[in-house]
Each structure stands twice: as structure tokens, then as C-alpha cells.
């Protein structure tokens, strides 16, 4: 037998929907997700941002120190001033590539030499190299220096 349910008039139907909505709002199911989203995301996102930046800064600092150290060593161990500059530049490029710098970062790599004597590779002189490059992600300039004393008996 088909029981015919007469449709409720429009205002009464609206009241029922409102009650259902209130019930749904008061329900506990899914509240953990809301709590997590409201609390965890604002608290933890800054931490992840800090973590990423700090890791990047530490890594870059390590790389640029190695570059400065090896760059000046390559210069000092060379036979002549001209060869020193060439070898140092080559060493910087090779090491930068091996340490995982991107092509964009390598393009911004620069080395500045400060020497106590002229030419740089003179006996008893001192060479200071300042290596810098721009980090591709943060666009920060990373810089480090290294210096070495040249043998008086070269």
C-alpha cells in the first residue's frame, strides 16, 4: 500500500532544516580536525619556515667557507701570479659545481683578492680572498673570506 505523505508547508520545512543545522554544529565528530587546523597550522608553519631558512643559511655558509679556503690555497700553491688567479678561479668553479650550487648561483659567484704585495704572489706576502654568491632561493648574498701567508722562500 502506498502511503501518501503530504509535503509540509514551506515555513515548517525551514524550521526543521535550522534544527538539523544546529544539531550538526553541536556534533563532536570531526572536531579534532577543526582543532588541529586552527591550532597546529598557525603554530607549526612559522617553525617550518624558520627550519627551512636556517638549514639553507647554514648550508650556504658551509659552502662559501670551503670555497674561500680552497680558492686561496689554490692561489698560494701556484707557480706564478697569473697562474694563481686562473687556478683559483677554476678551483672555485669546480668546487662550487661539486658542492651542488646551481648554474644560476655559479653565475653570481665572485672572488675578490686583497694582497699585501704587488704582484699578489710575492714572497712573504699575504693574500685574502673574499668569495660571495647569491643564493637562488632566498636571494641573499653569502660571503666568506680566507687568508694565507705566502712562503718567504717561494
Amino acid at each position, binding site marked *: 500500500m502506498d502511503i501518501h505523505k503530504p509535503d509540509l508547508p514551506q515555513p515548517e520545512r525551514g524550521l526543521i532544516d535550522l534544527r538539523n543545522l544546529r544539531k550538526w554544529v553541536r556534533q*563532536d565528530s570531526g*572536531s*579534532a580536525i577543526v*582543532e*588541529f587546523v586552527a*591550532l*597546529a597550522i598557525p*603554530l*607549526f608553519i612559522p*617553525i617550518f619556515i*624558520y*627550519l627551512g631558512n*636556517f*638549514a639553507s643559511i*647554514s648550508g650556504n*655558509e*658551509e659552502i662559501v*667557507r*670551503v670555497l674561500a*679556503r680552497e680558492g686561496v690555497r689554490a692561489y698560494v700553491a701556484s*707557480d706564478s701570479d697569473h697562474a694563481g688567479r686562473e687556478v683559483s678561479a677554476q678551483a672555485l668553479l669546480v668546487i662550487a659545481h661539486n658542492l651542488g650550487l646551481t648554474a644560476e648561483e655559479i653565475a653570481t659567484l665572485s672572488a675578490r683578492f686583497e694582497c699585501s704585495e704587488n704582484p699578489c704572489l710575492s714572497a712573504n706576502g699575504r693574500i*685574502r680572498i*673574499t668569495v660571495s654568491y647569491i643564493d637562488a632561493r632566498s636571494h641573499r648574498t653569502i*660571503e*666568506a*673570506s*680566507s*687568508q*694565507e*701567508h705566502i*712562503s*718567504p*722562500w717561494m
Partner: protein
Amino acid sequence: MDVKKSSAEAFRDERGSLSVVIIGLFFITVASLMVMSDVATVLVAKRSLAQATEAAAQRGVHTLNESAYYTGKGTMWSAPLDLITNRDHTPIPIDCNRAALEVILELHNWSNDQGSLKRHELQGLVLTDLQCDGTSIELSTYAEIKFPFTVPFSTMDSAILTSTAGTTNQVQEGFYLFGVRLH
């Protein structure tokens, strides 16, 4: 009585329990991050200290002891004979007193640098030991490093880093004529 009952009920209520867990985790994470930042700073500073120690050792080893070096009798046959017999070069003697002075000067130079030569967290480079046997030198240094964050749940805000480097001289082989290297 009712108040007591309702507070006990509220205490047993599980609503908001996740917040306590998240906030607790947050504080643990922040504390761990502070420790991690300190450790990373120590690692970078350690490299900087090692770099300074090596530079000082390199400078120290260049001090040739001339009186010890220019001894013995060399003739026009000495060099060809050495070449034929494949005799090892005698070690290059170092003037240990001058080496100590040069090492101190180099460390002082690094220590007082205001640029990017050393990490600014390193307070000052101190020479703790210098061993010189006449042909090689070995030196040890230490420096105090200030942490970016005080270690959580402690009062530790600095640490002592040490570094040791040793070096010796080696004759650069080649064919020289009047001081000019031909080969």
C-alpha cells in the same frame, strides 16, 4: 556540591584535549629547534676555527732555520748523485722560536678581524699548545662560541671549541737555473 560535580565533569570531558597535545608538542619542537640551531652554529664555527688554525700552522712552518739548512758540503756532483741514487730530500728545518711568534701573529690577525674572515660567534682564538720538532709543527687552539639561543632547560649559552692542525715542509722538485724554474 553541584559546582564540584560540574568541575569534575569538565575535567573528565575530552573536548579540547587535542589542544593540550598540540601546544605541548609545539613547545617541544621549539626547544628542539633551539638546540638544533645551536648545534648548526657550532659546526660552522668549528670549520672557521679549523681554517684559522691551519692558516696559522702554514705561516709558522714557513720559518726556515737558515743555519741548520745551509750546513754540510755540497759539490757540483751532489745534485746529480742525489738524482741518480734517488735519495730522499733532507727535511727542511724550522726555526721553532720564530714559528711560535708567527703562529701567534696569524691567530691574532684572525682573532681581531671584523670582516667575514671568522664567524662572529667565535669570541677569540687562543693558542693552547704548539709542538715543534724542528721539521714539523703541530698547534692546538681553542675559542669560545656564543650560542644564538640558550640551551632550553639549562643556563648553557656558550661552548669551547678546539682545533688541532699540523704541517711540514716539502721540497718542490724541479729544474732551476739561477732561481728560475725551467722544468
